[in-house]
């Protein structure tokens, strides 16, 4: 449903995206992870046909993003990074207007808007002006619009940034609902646990290049140890990573190391490895090299 081959985008002398290649099967959720400035939003902007690539090819829903943007636009929807619905409209008016602009007849747009608002638990606020709503609720209004649009591919660029834990889970529910309907979703996020919980596939990018990809489980397996020991304030042997005063160890048997660190005066935490640790391991290693 999404296929990217050697995609690159150059701004001035800087390659914001370079030789990016991956593909996503229909009905799957793919998360694009990476630090700020990694190129995630540039990738999304190319795939939604807003930005021309400098090199490479990309196909969305079987169509070329450069040559067939009109065909793609009929089959995709996007929630932009830091996007917000129009404040003086109500959630119902916003979703309804969006559906009308997508070409739905009025009756169908009304029905779809009502259903989507109900599904995202926005029925109670459907007639309140959006500027009076919380940040999380506003974000859900955007999601209701793309949910109601019933397209093949949805692009969500950091849809949960800045949201509280409850609002984030409501957004997760919406993403899961879209996935259950067979919609392919490309999600960019800074929250690695979100990617782990929601994704079938993860693409990790840094400085415009893909550094790894795979299922969340396969990537977690690449962490060199079943447990992660994080120590703040002291280190006893060479850690796998150092971030300021924080030392990170990937180990199979954490107890002995933790005891040594505690004796040295460090604050210590132990946890099972996760996708976040793989990102730390991979991106951190790249930064150090």
């Amino acid at each position, binding site marked *: 449903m999404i296929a990217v081959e050697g995609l690159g985008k150059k701004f001035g002398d800087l390659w914001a995206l370079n030789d990016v290649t991956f593909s996503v099967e229909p009905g799957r959720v793919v998360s694009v992870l990476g630090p700020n400035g990694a190129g995630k939003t540039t990738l999304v902007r190319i795939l939604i*046909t807003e930005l021309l690539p400098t090199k490479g090819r990309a196909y969305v829903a079987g169509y070329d993003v450069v040559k067939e943007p009109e065909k793609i636009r009929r089959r995709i929807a996007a929630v932009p990074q830091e996007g917000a619905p129009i404040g003086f409209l109500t959630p119902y008016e916003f979703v309804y207007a969006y559906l009308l602009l*997508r070409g739905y007849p009025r009756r169908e747009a009304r029905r779809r808007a009502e259903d989507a608002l109900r599904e995202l638990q926005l029925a109670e606020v459907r007639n309140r002006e959006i500027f009076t709503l919380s940040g999380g609720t506003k974000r859900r209004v955007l999601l209701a619009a793309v949910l109601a649009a019933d397209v093949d591919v949805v692009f969500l660029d950091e849809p949960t940034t800045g949201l509280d834990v409850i609002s984030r889970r409501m957004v997760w529910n919406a993403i899961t609902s879209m996935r259950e309907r067979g919609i392919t979703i490309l999600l960019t996020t800074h929250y690695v646990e979100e990617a782990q919980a929601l994704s079938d596939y993860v693409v990790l990018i840094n400085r415009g290049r893909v550094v790894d990809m795979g299922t969340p489980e396969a990537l977690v397996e690449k962490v060199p140890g079943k447990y992660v020991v994080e120590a703040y304030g002291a280190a006893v042997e060479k850690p796998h990573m150092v971030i300021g005063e924080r030392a990170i160890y990937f180990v199979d048997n954490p107890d002995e190391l933790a005891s040594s660190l505690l004796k040295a005066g460090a604050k210590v935490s132990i946890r099972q490895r996760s996708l976040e640790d793989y990102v730390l391991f991979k991106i951190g290693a790249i930064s150090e090299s």
Partner: protein
Amino acid sequence: MKKLLRDILIVGWLNGWVPLMRSWIWLVANSITPLSFLVLLAIYEGQRGLVWGLLGGLTWTVASNGISLIGDAAFYRLEIKFQQMLVAAPVSPVAYALGLALSSFIFAAPAVMFYVAYLAALGAFTARGAVELSIALAMLWISTAGIGFAASTLINQMRYAWAVPSILSAVLSAMAPVYWPATVLPSQYLGVVLPTGAAGIIGQSALGIARYGLNVLAAAWASLVIYTAAGLVLLAKVAKWRQT
């Protein structure tokens, strides 16, 4: 074409009609400056000044509609990214731009109706004059909408999106013969340099409050035609979703 017209109306509805029905502040904001001029001209010049103030207000209001879409277009692109949602949807950028222009016109419609009704009540219109003025104002609206949308694409920070329309509106209304006759200029042809001036000259002649030679009127029409064509070209060329 049907989808294009439908989208223009939808954008006009969501950005013009809904906020107008919800709050009258924008209506007042759009009308307050030309009404101020109207009051001043009426005080100092009596009924003659009143007609100048009404015609100037009508021209100024139509021109400022096109210009004021700069703020909306920049806000939707830079601040809430609504434009990006529409890029990823089957919406024509030309329909979007014209819809924004229509929404500005919806805000201005009550003020426009007030000026027209008042001028009619004063007996300022002849049938031919009304037609000439209507055509000139329609052309002015298209040309300023094109200029406004093109200018909005050059803005990369919201703080400029509020300042630029004020500057452009002031230049287009004060530096052109909108509230005053082009006869005060060293050459009357200088009056047609800006689209507001061209529309002003045509309107003043149509209402019989200033007399211009045929050549000056022809130059004013030519200027408006050129600005209208430029406005349409700007809408078609600049109003593109795709960025390089």
